[in-house]
Every structure is written in structure tokens, then in C-alpha cells.
């Protein structure tokens, strides 16, 4: 039996192999994903993002338990950084997600960013498709600890929870662009620490001053204490409400449509890029072009133009 056949019969080992296969971009992974898309399209994707140590993994644990109690099958993807120096990674999110049932209803996979810089690994999206095809009702995606601009999670999820902590900053931080703009739900974790109320007030003020669009989702601000499951039930409820709201308003399909558009463009971009690089006879050609710039005979734009024109001919 092939790995795919075992996968379609619900074999967890085969699922793990296929996740690796997709993650490693082994020969033919695109064809495999093509097959898997036939079985996908049912899974909800919930993203959790925020700074390092905010409690994302512990919240993933808490949410997973709620979904399981509701009879759902849950797949989790947790991303941690790859070293830019050695290519190695220490993937430690699993430490916070222990004692889940081992009956196949919950599946957790750690992924390293492997060079991607948007807060997810470049294969995270594809692994979510694998999960979907395997039959998980919900996929929880946890980003690396982010700063303000790693926002890939919005292209991978239906609902984004931004997790911050009382130490995350003052009112000015809440008004900045980037991370603060992508939340469908704000979650102030470690809410027993001083400053949590202040931060909630700052966030509320920031949201109040936003230009309101009629019929838009009213972004909730929640306070949680993930380690003792404080208010996890409220977070769970808000996630469910957000999904219901999006489905009813048509935003859900619209959002997925946008994501697929981006996906197609990204596939094309990669392909053109690869084709272009393959068209260069070898690396020395680029080095020679650099030399012409160093010698003052040309400039980067002129070189780019020349190479492009030769390629497109």
C-alpha cells in the first residue's frame, strides 16, 4: 500500500510522512497536494500570533481541549525559528501541549521556519491542506514569536487571535500598524499581571478610534490566564462567534477567495523565479555582471533589464 493510500485510511504514521514530504518539498509534492485538495475544504483554520513567550502554545492547548470536548478532531501546527547561521532549530512548543489524548483525535506538529520570515514556515499553508484532507475539523496554527510585521498568518487562517501580554507596551504601541491591525480577536494573556486592565483600556480606545465600516465584526478584547485555563472558554466562544459571523456575512468565502488568489500568484512567482534562475547559464554569469557594476560600466537596473530581456526572448 502506498503512503497516500494509508493516509486516506486514517493512518497517523502516513499523515506524518506526508507532512514531511510536503515540508521537504520532495519530488512530486505538488502532484500530491493536487490529489489532497480533492479531499480538503472542510477544516477551519484558527491562527494564534503574538510576541515570544506570550502563551500561544498554552492557549493552543486550552483551545484544543475545548474543541475535543465538542467532539472535534484537532490538528495543530506550531512554528519556531530556524537559525540563520546553522540551519538548525529548537522546536519547543510541544512542551506546553502535553497530556492530550493519544487516540488520534489530536495531532501536533512542530515546524521550523526554514528561511521564511513572515512568522510561519513556507510550507505551513500546505501542511494545513494535508490536515484538512486527513479529516481534522479544526487546524490551530501557532506562529513563531512575532514582532510587528510578520503577518503571513492572515493568509493561512479564517480567524486570527493576536495574543499579547500586559508588558506588551503602552497606548502608542496599540496604535501602530501591522500586528495590531490583523486581529479578529485580541487576547491579553497573563492577565493576572499588573497592567492588564490598562492595556485592555488602551486597546479598546484604539479600536474605538478606528474608522468603522458598517456591518464589520466588532473585535473583542479578552483577558486570559492560559496556564490555569482562565477564560479559555470565553476565547473559545469568541472564536466560534467569529466563524459564525464570517459565514453568515459572506466574509468567510471572500477571505478564502483572496487567499487562493494569493496562493496562485505565489506559485506563479516561484515558478518564474526558478525558471529565470535556471536560465542563467551558471552563477559566474551573475558574478561577471556584478563586476561590470563595480567597474562603473553599468548599474543594477541596467543589468537586470539586460538579463530580463534576454530571458523573455
Amino acid at each position, binding site marked *: 500500500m502506498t*503512503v497516500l493510500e494509508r493516509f486516506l485510511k486514517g493512518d497517523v504514521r502516513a499523515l506524518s510522512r506526508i507532512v514531511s514530504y510536503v515540508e*521537504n518539498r520532495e519530488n512530486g509534492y505538488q502532484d500530491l497536494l493536487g490529489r489532497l485538495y480533492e479531499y480538503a475544504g472542510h477544516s477551519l483554520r484558527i491562527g494564534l500570533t503574538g510576541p515570544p513567550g506570550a502563551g500561544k502554545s498554552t492557549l493552543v492547548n486550552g483551545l484544543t481541549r475545548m474543541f475535543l470536548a465538542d467532539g472535534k478532531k484537532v490538528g495543530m501546527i506550531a512554528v519556531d525559528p530556524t537559525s540563520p547561521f546553522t540551519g538548525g*532549530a*529548537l522546536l519547543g512548543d510541544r512542551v506546553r501541549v502535553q497530556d492530550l489524548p493519544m487516540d488520534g483525535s489530536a495531532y501536533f506538529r512542530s515546524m*521550523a521556519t526554514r528561511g521564511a520570515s513572515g512568522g510561519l514556515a513556507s510550507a505551513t499553508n500546505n501542511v494545513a491542506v494535508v490536515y484538512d484532507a486527513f479529516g481534522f475539523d479544526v487546524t490551530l496554527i501557532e506562529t513563531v514569536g512575532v514582532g510587528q510585521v510578520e503577518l503571513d498568518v492572515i493568509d493561512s487562517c479564517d480567524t486570527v487571535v493576536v495574543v499579547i501580554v500586559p508588558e506588551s507596551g503602552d497606548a502608542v504601541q496599540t496604535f501602530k500598524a501591522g500586528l495590531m491591525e490583523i486581529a479578529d480577536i485580541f487576547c491579553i494573556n497573563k492577565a493576572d499581571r499588573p497592567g492588564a486592565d490598562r492595556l485592555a483600556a488602551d486597546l479598546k480606545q484604539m479600536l474605538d478610534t478606528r474608522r468603522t465600516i458598517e456591518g464589520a465584526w466588532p473585535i473583542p478584547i479578552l483577558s486570559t490566564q492560559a496556564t490555569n485555563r482562565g477564560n479559555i472558554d470565553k476565547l473559545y466562544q469568541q472564536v466560534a462567534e467569529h466563524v459564525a459571523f464570517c459565514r453568515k456575512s459572506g466574509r468567510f468565502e471572500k477571505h478564502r477567495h483572496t487567499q487562493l488568489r494569493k496562493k496562485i500568484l505565489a506559485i506563479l512567482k516561484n515558478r518564474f523565479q526558478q525558471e529565470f534562475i535556471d536560465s542563467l547559464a551558471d552563477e559566474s554569469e551573475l558574478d561577471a555582471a556584478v563586476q561590470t557594476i563595480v567597474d562603473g560600466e553599468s548599474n543594477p537596473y541596467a543589468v537586470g533589464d539586460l538579463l530580463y530581456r534576454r530571458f523573455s526572448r
Partner: protein
Amino acid sequence: MEKKIRVLLAKPGLDGHDRGIKVIAAALRDAGMEVIYTGLRQTPPMIVDAAMQEDVDAIGVSILSGAHMTLFPAILDEMKSKGVADMFLFGGGIIPDDDKEELEQLGVAKVFTPGAPTEEVIQFLRRAVAERRRDEQIM
């Protein structure tokens, strides 16, 4: 893309001395491997279940409690019953030579004892993983 070596590191049983395993985790990370660190108080079923989900090449455990003759075989049994023959188990700790020999005969790929240089662990893993990797028919 070059296939990364993935290793799951765990502390089975109740012993909380995790400095050794953290040194190994950092060394393997710096050697370019992906290390899935699961931390303390892991049971054999938890370890093997995690290894299956993470699709690792190897499982590494650190045991300083003296319970190695119980825990290593329990993990090997679990690996057998879950059918993960293509993964291998290695470990380290304060383990007498006689026990080390017996464990390696039982199927632990390698047991490291105090004083083993991290480079030795890295070289062992690279070699052992290269020997065992095989291609499967995916579709």
C-alpha cells in the same frame, strides 16, 4: 531541498535533571538539526506518540535516575508495538558499562555516558540517520 535530520529529545520518568539534555539539544541545533524538545516527565507512550507525529529520525532520551534498565526497554517495546521500526533510540546518562552493553544488545542504537563529547553524538546521528533513511512510495 536537503532533508533535515529531525530528533526528538525527552526526559522519561521522574528525574528532573535536564541540564545534560539541554546541552545535547543546543549542540544538535547548532549542528543544523531540527530538535523537538519535549521536556520532563515523559512516559514511554507519550515519547513514541510524539515521535510518530513529528516524523523524527531518532528519539534521544536522558536518564540520570538509575531507572534506565526499565525505561529504555519500555520505550523500545512501545516503538515495536507502534511499528516505528525505521526510527532508532539513543540515549545518555549515568549508566554503568555492563548496563550500556545490555541496552545496546536490546536495541538501543547507542548509549552515551558522562564525558562523551557532543561532536561524537552529532557524528553518530549523522551516520546512523544516513544508513537508515529509505524512500517510500508516496503515491
